């Protein structure tokens, strides 16, 4: 067995390396499904916005299929959707233009996998975004979380002039600290 390489912080100056072009735009008119925005902020233990964090999202297409060979349905996945995006948090926070994912076969509700990187985080944090307009209690991962903390994973559906916006903040610390996961094999 080889020793895995340790993580180090992304630091404050990752924009030129990790945010080329429109990394936060996952979908355009050709993408199947309901177009949505996901918007929010990353907050530190004082409740202050973290302006040098980086969020990554990974999600299924509108049918619940991933564009990756480990998905048995990948050949039928939306050819105009990779499912991966990045956003910085400078200014108003993060923003993703994407589509609402479909439900993965044999799962109960849609969700999006999220990673948080920041200066001051030697190792990234992993969380999930669930949608407020679904009965997420049917999802075993969501249901296993203490009820008082479940809301930290819920993105709130709002209708805005520019379309549907899901609002969701990530709290790194504090009374409403977001639920973060340890991935198991």
């Amino acid at each position, binding site marked *: 067995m080889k020793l895995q390489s340790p993580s*180090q912080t992304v630091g404050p100056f990752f924009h*030129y*390396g990790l945010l080329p072009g429109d990394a936060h735009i996952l979908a355009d008119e050709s993408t199947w499904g309901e177009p949505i925005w996901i918007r929010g902020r990353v907050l530190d233990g004082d409740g202050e916005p973290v302006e040098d964090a980086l969020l990554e999202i*990974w999600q299924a297409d509108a049918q619940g299929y991933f564009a*990756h060979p480990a998905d048995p349905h990948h050949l039928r996945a939306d050819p105009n959707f990779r499912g991966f995006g990045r956003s910085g948090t400078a200014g108003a926070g993060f923003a993703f233009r994407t589509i609402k994912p479909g439900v993965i076969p044999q799962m109960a509700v849609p969700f999006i996998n999220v990673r948080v990187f920041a200066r001051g985080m030697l190792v*990234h944090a992993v969380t999930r975004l669930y949608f407020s307009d679904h009965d997420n209690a049917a999802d075993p991962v969501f249901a296993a979380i203490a009820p008082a903390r479940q809301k930290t994973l819920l993105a709130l559906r709002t209708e805005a002039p520019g379309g549907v916006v899901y609002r969701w903040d990530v709290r*790194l*610390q504090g009374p409403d600290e977001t639920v973060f996961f340890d991935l198991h*094999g």
Partner: protein
Amino acid sequence: MSRTSILDWSIQPPYLHTPYVATVRRAPHHPLIPLASSLAERTGPVYGEGDLGPLDHDLTRNAAKNGEPVGERIIVHGQVLDESGRPVPRTLIEIWQANAAGRYIHKNDQHEAPLDPNFVGAGRVLTNERGEYTFITIRPGAYPWKNHPNAWRPAHIHFSLIGQNFTQRLVTQMYFPGDPLLQYDPIYNGIPNIKAKERLIACFDLEHTRPEWALGYRFDIVLAGRDQTYFEGGR
């Protein structure tokens, strides 16, 4: 040898490492909640050659305006493996770094050192079938930061690896052998295991120097995971 966490927490740095002051308000306090891998974690973004430009791997040329960047030209190469020693092919590596004077092009970098009109300091490459990669760049300079009095970051290149699925993601930094600043660096010293710390120090590689042109460094990277078979036999 039973380990269920994909990240090996005996060698990965903790969230809270008080000598690195910025961790104090940004470290989650609750214990992490175990999450068994589902299809959403056994998949991840896939990249191909079409995603890359011809000069993306060469930081000495990919931002050149009217000449070559200033500094010591270096070749950084290595192999990406998983924990069972299996090469990780066709994975995206992205790097970013300061210039030879220790200055990032980023607008928030206030270090009083010159920018280089011919250097942005960002590059990308896909590993080949054997998990190998090569970048050509400039050796970055050390630079001061405000973590503690007279704090200096050791020279480093930031590395980001997508891996073959969601669980293999790694963001780390490559350091240079013999750097006297390493012993004082709270970011490097956040790693709790001496062998793991050594993993992040590139080896000088005489065989991969290009005579009369550039020095070579080898930097191998081991991603978490032991059983990644999805790409076997090509696609």
